[in-house]
């Protein structure tokens, strides 16, 4: 078990490294270096960067030195918690991102929980009552969920909310609590706004979980031990829930590894459509304004959070599934 977790952890470290290289590449790709664009930016604001200051910045980021040196210097700054300056906002990147990162986590986790809470029971129902009206309905909704890209779904819901209720369903907070400090009222407000983005983000994942659960459970239900259990006179609920569901659950748990990146990915674009105060709209704005330190940092942080989430789910999986535990020892 420890060996397994250790292997996953090493892989996670490699993944973080790969993401950091890609984030660095994103920062480096646009023409010109950070300092020249910083000077231009400051000049357009009417302030002048002294030669000495520019020189210091160049040394700090190792500009003009080979790529790998620049990368290492950037990494060193990051480890110390210095993500550079956001050009557009003229503030440190960490300050600009602020609570938006945590709101991204909240929205993603809510969507993930939703895929489980909805996907599991519906999948079980679909398998047990195969070819019933409910099964067909679940299959149909499932296909819609898989086929409609979530940002289009967001757009349609936004439109319907606007036309039918004349209400703006986007956002995560009511206007009066938008910039208020955290309080019980604000948390409650957040919880009230959370379901719509969570449903939009989680629908595709839910659809997939329903399909997987249904297929797995159908395979299990045909096995002889289920017939034995039934012939012994166990109640139907017990026949289904005691073993088949537990066995069918296993491959289901392992999909979390790629459900999470998918949801985080989707949250970016859905946030843009719904105007959620997550890192999504910030990333888009940063990219369009070529504010590369901000953009690179967001890509890096999102990637790292996803990797951590996946690692936690891997560990949970080992804990749930004795087969993996035994295999690896």
């Amino acid at each position, binding site marked *: 078990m420890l060996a397994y977790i250790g292997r996953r952890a090493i*892989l996670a470290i*490699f*993944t973080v490294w*790969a*993401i950091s290289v*890609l*984030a660095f*590449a*994103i920062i480096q*790709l*646009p*023409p010109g270096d950070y300092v020249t664009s910083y000077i231009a930016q400051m000049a357009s604001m009417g302030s002048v960067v002294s030669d000495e200051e520019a020189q210091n910045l160049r040394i700090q980021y190792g500009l003009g030195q080979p790529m790998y040196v620049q990368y290492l210097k950037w990494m060193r700054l990051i480890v110390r918690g210095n993500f550079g300056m956001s050009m557009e906002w003229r503030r440190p990147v960490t300050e600009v991102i602020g609570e938006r990162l945590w709101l991204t986590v909240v929205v993603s986790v809510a969507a993930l929980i939703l895929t489980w809470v909805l996907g599991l029971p519906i999948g079980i129902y679909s398998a047990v009552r195969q070819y019933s009206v409910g099964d067909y309905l679940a299959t149909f909704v499932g*296909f819609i969920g*898989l*086929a*409609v*890209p979530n*940002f*289009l779904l967001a*757009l*349609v819901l*936004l*439109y319907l909310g*606007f*036309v039918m209720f004349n209400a*703006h369903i*986007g956002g995560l907070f009511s206007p009066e609590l938008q910039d208020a400090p955290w309080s019980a009222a604000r948390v409650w407000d957040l919880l009230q706004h959370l379901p719509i983005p969570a449903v939009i983000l989680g629908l595709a994942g839910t659809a997939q979980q329903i399909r997987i659960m249904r297929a797995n459970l159908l395979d299990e239900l045909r096995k002889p031990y289920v017939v034995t259990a039934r012939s012994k006179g166990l109640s139907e609920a017990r026949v289904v829930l005691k073993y088949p569901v537990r066995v069918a659950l296993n491959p289901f748990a392992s999909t979390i*590894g*790629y459900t999470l*990146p*998918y949801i*985080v*990915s*989707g949250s*970016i*674009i859905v946030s*843009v*459509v719904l105007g959620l105060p997550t890192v999504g709209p910030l*990333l*888009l704005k940063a*990219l*369009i304004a*070529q504010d590369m330190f901000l*953009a*690179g940092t*967001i*890509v890096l942080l*999102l*990637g790292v959070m*996803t*990797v951590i989430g*996946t690692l936690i789910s891997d560990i949970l999986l080992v804990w749930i599934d004795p087969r993996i535990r035994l295999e690896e020892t």
Partner: protein
Amino acid sequence: MAEPAVALEPTSAVADAREQRVFVASQWQLMWWRFRKHKVAVASGLIVIAFYAGVLGADFLAYADPDASEAQRSLMPPQRVYWFDGWRFSPYVYAVKGARDPQTFKRVYRADPSQKIAIRFFAEGFEYRVFGLIATTRHLIGVDRGLDAGETVFLLGTDVQGRDLWSRLMYGTRISLTIGLFGVTVSLVLGVVLGGLSGFYGGVADTVIQRTIEILRSIPTIPLWMGLAAALPRDWSVLQVYFAITIIISLLGWTDLARVVRGRFLAMREEDFVVSARLVGCSQMRTIFVHMVPSFMSHIIAATTLALPAMIISETALSFLGLGLRPPAISWGVLLQQAQNVQTVAISPWLMIPAVPVIIAVMAFNFLGDGLRDAADPYGR
């Protein structure tokens, strides 16, 4: 065949003949028979074919120049088409008159029932080249000589710049569906080569490639795509951006295909026919491409079909955000960009129409891919 079975019933002779046919059928025939039974997949296949026919004939299906903008006809609602004139089948529309509302300053359009405009089939319109070669002016629909379809017919309304949405949608379909096709081709090459290396050689190559796939799969793709797409130089031509976007999308999309290919290679490496091919002295290339690849070709085709919708959605999403293809290129995502603002959409809901082909195409590819996968699986139920 067992003797008594033949003696018992005449019907078993028929069954026997059918069985005989199954025995001699080629793999592709077996697949086709099984595929045919899956009605939804067959229907989806026809839809996909229709889509690609539309890709080839976009100029023919469009009746107005997709780039012809005119402020005088900005944000026109879709026109109502009257199919029968009295009892005769002769579709027509009413001419539209635009004016500015003195109170809201919005342009309002009113149909003018005194002015009927007949819609003609195979009429003449703007000039284009069939497959880029033969110049012609024929279009599926158009209006009488002397009138301009671009100024009189608005089947799906117009956008903010007054460009005809139907015609733009036809050209958008061309770009969105071909970008998916090119993207999937690049992914396929990467997937087959890397998946093949991984499955055929095993060992270190396998470990490295598998770990790389795992790493790629655990990275959230959209932020990464956005970053890479935003870094493309602004002065690139439409064509350069098109190919760059294709490559960006397929760089992360090959992992599923590689997994399928690797799985097949692993399963097949120890099969008798592969071992004997090796024993009679076939070269490695020959073993792979003459003996192994044909036997899982069908799986690759199914996996490719299932990979296409993801490509289409990725392109649409990127262009929708303004980071993918940029105007003057037309794609579904570029068209949907106009629908980003709720207020605009609430006033002009037809701007959301380009979402319909996205959804239909994605569904059709999914069902078709499912059907192909089931048909390709010899042990399927």
